């Protein structure tokens, strides 16, 4: 089966692209690891036009139901390992139950989003879910009356600290910056709390533990002094990075985001990108939805120019 379009990714941008393609009656397939992506991880969304207040779970469900209403072909649990250009077609390679599977399409929309950036220090992989987490709202309750550290000094780190305020006994926020950055009201609240201690200008060296996390080692950048902090839990919030590793045939910027023009075109004709994986400046649901629509319409346009049957 050769699809007209394959969408890779099932979050806001991918679903939006799917809805636009479905309404154009384009023969398409959406493949993704999880339909809805990481939208359910958002506690609340209050900036999506027309919906003043909604949980990430409910918004994700609404998006999914809208797309599924068009009887679209969707395959979940699939991660693309490679993309190959063959004549005017594209082959997407995935590994399913240890078997290599190929999907073929005339055009591709990449909407694989982004993932939390890792620290890349010793102990990070070993202690994941053993006291180390990238999701404070998910795993925070395990640290009732315990001492925790948050790595990062931006909005997401600050919000993570807020979510742990009524759970943890003590919260350390460690950042490589001179001070916390982000929404002023949140920062002021954190600084007033006797539970919170901010440790600026640090570089994390190692996550320590036995069966579970027992602490971390860091370097005070200003004075070059090695320090040890004993904590029961560590939450990492040092930003996001695009899920673009397997798309090496495409031009990317220094952040590894796929370069696109204003129509969603990448450096390879026939391949479009949308949402957080692309080099659009602001990572927002509304922007991902819009860029998914642009990519879909551009793909339709591309098919029309390259195939007289459309």
């Amino acid at each position, binding site marked *: 089966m050769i699809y007209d379009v394959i969408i890779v990714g099932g979050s806001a941008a991918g679903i939006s692209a799917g809805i636009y393609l479905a309404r154009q009656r384009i023969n398409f397939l959406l493949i993704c690891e999880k339909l809805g992506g990481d939208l359910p991880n958002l506690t609340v969304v209050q900036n999506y036009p027309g919906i003043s207040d909604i949980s*990430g779970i409910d918004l994700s469900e609404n998006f999914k139901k809208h797309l599924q209403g068009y009887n679209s072909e969707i395959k979940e649990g699939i991660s693309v390992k490679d993309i190959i250009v063959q004549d005017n077609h594209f082959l997407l390679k995935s590994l399913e139950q240890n078997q290599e599977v190929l999907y073929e399409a005339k055009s591709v929309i990449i909407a694989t989003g982004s993932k939390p950036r890792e620290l890349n220090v010793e102990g990070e992989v070993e202690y994941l879910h053993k006291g180390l987490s990238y999701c404070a709202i998910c795993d*925070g309750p*395990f640290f009732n009356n315990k001492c925790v550290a948050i790595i990062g000094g931006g909005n997401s780190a600050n919000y993570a600290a807020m979510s742990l305020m009524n759970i943890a006994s003590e919260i350390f926020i460690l950042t490589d910056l001179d001070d916390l950055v982000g929404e002023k009201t949140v920062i002021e609240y954190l600084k007033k709390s006797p539970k919170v201690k901010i440790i600026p200008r640090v570089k994390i060296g190692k996550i320590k533990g036995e069966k579970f996390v027992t602490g971390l080692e860091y370097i005070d950048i200003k004075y070059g002094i090695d320090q040890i902090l004993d904590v029961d839990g560590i939450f990492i919030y040092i930003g996001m990075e695009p899920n673009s590793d397997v798309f090496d045939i495409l031009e990317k910027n220094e952040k590894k985001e796929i370069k696109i023009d204003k129509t969603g075109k990448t450096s390879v004709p026939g391949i479009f990108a949308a949402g957080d994986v692309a080099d659009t400046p602001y990572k927002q649901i509304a922007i991902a939805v819009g860029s998914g629509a642009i990519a879909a319409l551009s793909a339709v346009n591309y098919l029309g120019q390259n195939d007289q049957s459309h």
Partner: protein
Amino acid sequence: MKIKIFSSPTCPWCQVAKDFFKDHGLEFEAIDLTEDPEALEEVIEKTGQMGVPVIKIDDEYIVDFDKKFLLKKLNLKE
């Protein structure tokens, strides 16, 4: 078949997991780990980790919500 879902009140994937079982008409016992220290110890001891949701089906503990895995394990359709 006895199903338990160990969760926390703010964990989004716990809610997704509960909805999954509800949608398929499967009864389950929901356990809030923030209010049940014994269950919390049980989860840590049996799974060796501190992430939720944890789904217990009979004697098997399943960490995280994996829809595809559960559909196959329970012989369900989407």
